[in-house]
């Protein structure tokens, strides 16, 4: 379905060209890493670096975060549809400037991690990124093929309607039981760019003193709320978790809620005002007040 060899060759060719004619200072991609078992981030800075770049079935890393580190420089990025959604979210939230970024849109039908479909790939809506400057299609050409996607993820809203509070609590508790509060999920997340995370602030009651259940609940629930309408469903949090915590359903549920209530999906349009930035005097406050009250009344 996807010719990774041709995609790799095309990517190397593109990166070489961008670097040698000084269109960009750096190309963000991945290179082989036999120890880790899948390709890991690589920053190509010279035209001769480009040949180290690869594109494979298991290059599932979301590189969008690294763009914020090369801010101010001209950067190109090899990006899948999910990475592009993250880039769009970062542009919409003024973390990146569109003019600095050259998006090399890699067509993708889902990535593999540990011989399984990587986290969130089952929910990906399209094989083609919704914003790009250079297209690299499934066959290495410049014309996207619009491949069929697995689209087998659960509908969290449906699940929540058909379960009891106890069942939902049970699922959440089973997941956070595995958590060791290492915060790798936060570190890998495109939306978690706060200079100081609420959980890292000194002298707050929710500071990590102990990996106790209350702290874990405070962290995961607050992080979920902070990402409402901002999560781009890339799965980076689950991919880096050393303990196998699967909490993406919380974020997916919130995304479904935001889409239904505010007709907004993060990572779709860099020009759109993020949902948390909007103000409307007839907002029914469904999320906080259940929809009965109108602000100001």
């Amino acid at each position, binding site marked *: 379905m996807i010719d990774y060899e041709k995609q790799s060759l095309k990517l190397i060719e593109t990166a070489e060209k961008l670097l040698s004619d000084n269109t960009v200072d750096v190309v963000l991609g991945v290179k082989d890493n036999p*120890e880790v078992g899948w*390709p890991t981030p690589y920053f190509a800075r010279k035209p001769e670096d480009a040949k180290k770049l690869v594109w494979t079935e298991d290059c599932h890393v979301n590189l969008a975060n690294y763009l914020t580190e090369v801010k101010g420089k001209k950067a190109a990025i090899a990006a899948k549809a999910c990475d592009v959604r993250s880039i769009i979210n970062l542009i919409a939230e003024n973390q990146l400037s569109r003019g600095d970024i050259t998006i090399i849109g890699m067509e993708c039908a889902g990535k593999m991690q540990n011989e399984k479909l990587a986290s969130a790939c089952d929910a990906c809506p399209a094989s083609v990124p919704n914003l790009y400057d250079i297209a690299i299609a499934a066959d290495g050409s410049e014309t996207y093929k619009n491949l069929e996607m697995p689209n087998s993820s659960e509908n969290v809203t449906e699940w929540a309607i058909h379960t009891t509070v106890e069942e939902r609590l049970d699922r959440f508790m089973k997941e956070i039981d595995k958590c060791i509060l290492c915060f*790798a999920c936060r570190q890998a997340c495109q939306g978690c760019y706060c200079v100081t995370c609420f959980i890292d602030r000194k002298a707050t009651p929710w500071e990590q003193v102990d990996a106790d259940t209350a702290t874990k609940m405070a962290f995961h629930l607050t992080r979920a709320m902070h990402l409402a309408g901002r999560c781009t469903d890339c799965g980076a949090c689950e991919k*880096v978790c*050393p303990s196998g915590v699967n909490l993406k359903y919380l974020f997916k549920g919130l995304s479904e809620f935001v889409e239904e209530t505010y007709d907004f999906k993060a990572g779709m349009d860099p020009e759109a005002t993020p949902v948390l930035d909007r103000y409307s005097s007839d907002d029914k406050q469904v999320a906080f007040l259940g929809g009965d009250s109108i602000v100001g009344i």
Partner: protein
Amino acid sequence: MSAYKLDIARVKAALEKLMEKYTVIAPVMNGDRLDYAEVTEVNDVILDNQLPYKSPKEMVFPRVEKVMRFLEGKVEEAQDIKPVLLVGAKPCDVAAMRIFDDIFTGDKGKFQDPFYLNRRNSLTIIGLGCTDYKNGCFCNIRGTDLSFAPDCDGFLNMVGDSFIYQPLTDKGKDIFTGEETEPVKRADKHEEELVLNAKESEVFTTMPWEAYAEGCIGCGTCTYLCPTCHCFNLRDAEDKGVVTRTRVWDSCMYPKFTLHAGGHNPRTKKSERFRQRVLHKYLYIPENYDHTACTGCGRCIRACPGGLNIMNTVTDIKKRLEEAKK
């Protein structure tokens, strides 16, 4: 002490018995990966060439440990614990225990960490030799033998279908017995090839630290999985008049690690934090002890989502130092 030959059935039968007296910790499957964990069913124990995902340092240095409570003028200290038997510790993990011993009894025993020693003294360690290197292993150039590490109470080696058990201390004398046999021949001590014989000033600003660390996302997984990372923080938390002092793991990969009370942070960049991790293991510890603080288990390399590689980094620094001397 003589060695014994025994098959896996006999090892498991012995473990079954030992579970009455000890909390037995051994490699068992935890979901789809191997971890050192408490054994509840002896048939779950996996003694083979695989390296458990996490190191066994939690047995002596738990991630979270309540060290004392202050209540109504009273101070409660740590309690005695049931003896623990760790079976199947890989040579890299056994070697790490010696590094822990040195650090927690710092300055040649002058500073004794009571919480560490409390657990360490109740721990019996039985090592298990590897038969092959895994992707990312580099114990061979870190002075750890693939098939043996001496700093434990007894050692198991896989020979064909059976095991040869070599007791090394009194604590390990009666753990396993079997038919008497010749001890496994040991290789001469490996040389620590991958070392930095340099001064801090030669590497501190001259090496391309930013390039080494550019993939880092600051998740700290390397330090959590490392068998020798031992930095911790002490925190006091008050709840209804009772103050609990807790010791929790810290990580030099976290931005807050060296944040001072006044707000200054000497290591604001991830390159500076990675430099601290590399130099602590390869430069600062050797200044105070007769060894480095890396056993070559490769866990940090295999688990790094950013693809950082301490072995390649140190190899590259060595190469640059040699070139500079020319």
